[in-house]
């Protein structure tokens, strides 16, 4: 018996037979109608179609914008604006599709052994959507750049930036959560530009160590965007940019700058040697390898990190991302990822592959049987 039907009026249900779907569109009960729409295959199709258009737009958008920018606009957001018109963006569409999937599992898809493959696939998909959304808020991605001989216990998040005061390492305030007062002076964030360049013309009276007057959107394509902020600090307007060479000094003598947020790593990493190998006679990279010294408390050991061979430390994984492109080939760039839910993707893969193949085999048997008729 359909669980859902039981809660509703008996008159509106009809017997379910093999091959028949119990639909409820004729109902006048608004809640039931809503549930029907929420779990309908039509909504799935519209969602998929929308996602198709979104992905296509997001792909072409990258012709003129950085991948981070595109991701933020199209995929890691709830709404995307076509001019003034807000339209559903990636997160919203995926959330709707996930909800649709869950509702449909309870209301629409009757379990039959011939559909067991589809069931497993959709279970995997539900897990994928839930896992994706949780990871979106659970997973931390940061970067570590080391020259040979250098070491660090922090990794740096190029997407989130901190305000640092007085040059002290301890006084860090995340830009997206500034306290109302720092050092007894009121702080108000006036303007934040995630991808900013400095301009030496126009603007109001601001203080900046480079002498810049205002911020303009960066026209740089690709790479990691560098942000800029204009903030009121006491009575002064301060302009800070991620690429400022020196801190900006306030009237009260406080030194201000912005830097990527940093996360402590469970170990200290020291780059001992970095090698970038290229195919002879070409600029095609063959392998990047970093030999690092991993120090945890009193214990130190050597590890080799190369492409496809990351260093795994509990929830942390350190990957070889590349080398410094600035003409130097002795600076190694690592990606540090903290992700307690890595296993989700693997479970999803297992579920979906199992489901797909079960369903395919059932379909093949079905086609074969029909052809033999």
């Amino acid at each position, binding site marked *: 018996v359909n669980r859902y039907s039981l809660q509703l009026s008996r008159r509106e249900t009809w017997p379910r037979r093999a091959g028949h779907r119990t639909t409820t569109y004729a109902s006048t009960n608004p809640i039931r109608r809503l549930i029907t729409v929420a779990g309908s295959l039509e909504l799935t199709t519209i969602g998929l*179609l929308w996602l198709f258009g979104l992905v296509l737009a997001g792909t072409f958008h990258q012709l003129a914008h950085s991948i981070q920018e595109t991701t933020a606009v199209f995929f890691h957001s709830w709404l995307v604006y076509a001019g003034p018109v807000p339209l559903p963006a990636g997160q919203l569409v995926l959330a709707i599709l996930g909800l649709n999937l869950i509702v449909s599992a309870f209301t629409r898809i009757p379990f039959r052994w011939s559909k067991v493959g589809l069931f497993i696939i959709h279970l995997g998909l539900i897990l994928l959507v839930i896992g994706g959304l949780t990871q979106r808020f659970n997973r931390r991605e940061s970067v570590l750049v080391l020259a040979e001989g250098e070491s660090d216990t922090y990794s740096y998040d190029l997407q989130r930036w901190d305000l640092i005061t007085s040059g002290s390492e301890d006084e860090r305030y995340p830009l997206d959560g500034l306290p109302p007062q720092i050092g007894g002076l009121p702080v108000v964030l006036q303007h934040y530009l995630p991808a900013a360049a400095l301009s030496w013309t126009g603007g109001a009276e601001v203080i900046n160590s480079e002498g810049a007057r205002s911020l303009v959107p960066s026209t*740089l394509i690709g790479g990691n965007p560098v942000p800029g902020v204009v903030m009121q600090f006491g009575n002064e307007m301060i302009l800070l940019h991620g690429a400022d060479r020196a801190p900006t000094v306030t009237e009260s003598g406080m030194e201000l700058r912005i830097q990527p947020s940093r996360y402590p790593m469970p170990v200290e990493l020291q780059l001992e040697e970095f090698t970038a190998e290229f195919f002879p006679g070409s600029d095609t990279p063959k392998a990047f390898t970093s030999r690092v010294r991993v120090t945890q408390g009193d214990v130190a050991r050597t590890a080799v990190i190369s492409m*496809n061979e990351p260093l795994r430390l509990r929830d942390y994984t350190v990957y070889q991302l590349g080398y410094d492109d600035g003409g130097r080939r002795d600076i190694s760039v690592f990606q540090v990822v903290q992700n307690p839910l890595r296993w989700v993707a693997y479970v999803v893969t297992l579920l979906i592959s199992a489901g797909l193949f079960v369903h*395919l085999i059932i379909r093949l048997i079905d086609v074969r049987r029909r052809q033999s008729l």
Partner: protein
Amino acid sequence: VSRRPGVPLKRSVFRHVVVRVVAIAALAVAAAPAIAQDPVLPDLAPPDLALRDIPRDLATVPVLYEGRSMPLESAGRLALYRLSGRNRVGELGSTGWFVRLLLDPFSAIEDKVFLVNNPATLDAIDYPDPHRGRYSYLDLYGSLGLLNSLAVGLSAVGRPLDATEQELVELGNNVLLFEGLASTFDLFRNAAPAAAGGGPAESELRRFLSTGEITRADLSELPGMLSLFPVRSADGIAWLTPSGAVSHLMQDPAAAPHLRDLLEAWDVVLPAFLLADSGALAHGSRLLAQGIQAVRSDGYELGPTGIEVLSTRLNPVRWAGVALGLALGLSLLLGRRTRAIQWVRLPVGVAVIFLTAAQIIRFLITHRPPVTDLPASFLFVAWIVVIVGFGLTLASKQAGRVGVFLSTLAGLGLIYLARLVTGGADIFGVVRAVLDTNFWLTTHVLVVTAGYGGVVAAGVAGHIYLIGRLYRPHQSASHQSTLRIMFVLMLAGLALAFLGTILGGIWADQSWGRFWGWDPKENGALLIVLWASIALHARVTRWFDNAAFASAAVFGNVVVLFSWLGVNLMGVGLHSYGFNDSSFVVLVGVSAAETVFAVGAWLWIRFGSSEKGMSRTTIASVHRDGDAVVITLRGDPVPHDRGQYLGVKPEGFDRAKPFSFVDTAEDSDRFLIGPSGPLSTYLANKARAGETVLVGRPSGEFVFGTHAGRDVVMVAGGVGIAPIVGLTREALAAGHTTTVICASRDHLYLDDDLRKLERENGDLVVLRLMSRPPEGWDGPVGRISTEAVETLLDGAGRTGAGADWYICGSCEFCATAREIARASGARDIFEEEFATALEAPPAPTFAADAVFLGPGGTGGRTVRIRPGQTILSASLDAGIEIPHSCMIGTCGECGCGIAGGGATQAVAPREAGPGDTVLTCVAYPGEPEGLVFSVEEKEK
């Protein structure tokens, strides 16, 4: 042109001439690559050189190029492909060009080998007349300094480069490669300073070989110099350039004695080539081959160059193309002949063998999954598709036809694409660091590429389906078979592409800690997954009918092309691995053609001639009545007699199903539809107001025709009440005393309408009987039987004796009611069965010729009915429009009189003879000759 009797001349000409021409053209296309000169070992025949051929020994000498040992000719092909994106320079093949570049660089500086796609690149280096094209070293010579400084500068800017900047860097690197290759044998050419005592000038190498000394210590190595001398090293084999070999010998003259032999052999080859002395060149090449042989016998592992040479000579991919072309031509020539599939299967099988060999060879040479670059992945998909097609030829005849077209069209197309991208023969390149061997990468790329193959194969099946629907609109069985194959291929494509995409995510997670990054290539794979999902889901929701699904499958090819080639052309993202201009033209051209075909074919099928005789209308309202619905159509009612039915065809169904008019009101057409069979179930459960349906013409003999004075008894079982309502009104209007008996299981359909009629007409009595009544039912309970009916009639003071009985319901119900009517002393009995699809009788194995006479026995056209073809299908193919509707033997629309011969059919009489009517949609000829049918013109 021979013409079959009965086939119009125009059609006959089309079939015979056009199809044959296409077949011959296909054969010619297949033959072309076989006849065409193979670019592998081309003539080296500039007029100033007397040499005809590069000796085989020289072309196959192993060298190190792009990090892998390979025959010299393969290195030449790769190098030329990298520089110019093709495999020949004017009349010169890649091997000839490469050998000349190495041995006689001054002749090579005028070869136009540097491909520049973007004129802005030439602007940037102050080239005087910039246009897109290929340039020689000499052309660029004046701009080389600027090019070099720009390329070096741009390599170091540390930000992503735009297309022009990328091309500048690439061009700079290509020039470096060219210069490196050209200086490989400098030592052999540079004259040593004259010896102290005068004497003839000799090369530095000659001096070194004779004295063990080198006068000018410039043994520097340029990037791009070719490494030709293997020596043992700590990690196996190291390959040295000539300068490196000399350095090695200087450090330890006894270390590698074979180096001296090889240097001496090259020292014979070089002057022989410069002097165009073919005898000496052959001798030097032999020395080289012997030297290499000696090195191999010393236990040096120089890689599988032998296999590569063999593969280059055999070129299995080309032969696979030939076999597929042959299969296509044969299948077009043989058409639908009985044994055609067996004949065509053979060349397809041969193609499978050749393509499998190509895949194995590729794996043996590169030690990588055979999908490391674009042409390789084309060939991999071709392999998959041809195997699937071959498998289908083994499955069944219907599937075999699809399989043949699938393997030949998709296989040839993909092989052509691969050749187009590489400019000819197979190349075996190297892969970038992040793409290097890794379990997840290997499975990801293999699975996702196989997924592309599935979607492409479904697209080809979509073509076959759409062309079939356009060309032979009535061969439903064949279309259904294609549709099923297309569905499974699409499902398989979706499964593999989805799985491959997730595996790609895992690989990305393993490699750089990011499961998904919205990179264009990832998006491309996702687009394929999404498109396949949309097509499959929209088919279930019936937003896509079969033709739309096939069009979506065809458009799937465009999506695959975009993901496969398009994102590479965009020049962004990690995955871009190069393109050239011809692939862009192919991409745009094929995408446009496919889109036009998909949309055009769908529009034609949807709105074109294939739905002749049906008109489009929309559903005005849907009201539930138990498990059935009452559907009201919008617009003016169709003129009909009460009791008749109308064929209704919702979107997405291939054929209409007849439904009786429910004549409760005059202002619109209404139908009662219960859930039985896919079409009715769809209408009963899913149809909604505003939906478009196609309707045919009203027909049916179940109309009111009782003589005045008689009583009328109407008996309806379940939804059989539909025509009874109208008939009852008709009977009441004619003044008959009317009794309606409604028998049902658990719900009385149209009961409100009947009660209204009862209230309005004193002469009407409605008796109700339910076998499983709902709670609260106080009427009689039970199944219909003589006793039950008599009790009911007696209770109402009515009698069935001498009355006309109208019966409607399922077959079993009608049979029972008929017996009751007879037992009650009925005068006339009219009945209508609601039948389900009839099983056609076993199809005959012979073909038959039948003559179709027009109305009144006029005209007369002979039609060939093929084995397994129904009489209706053959007549429709021949252009004789027998009226038809349901195609399942229930509506009776397609009935024809038999004037001669016999036919077997699904309804009684099963063996129909002269004088009988035969339902042509479920009938086959009973004998091969002497069949004559008379087609009566039905009243419209």
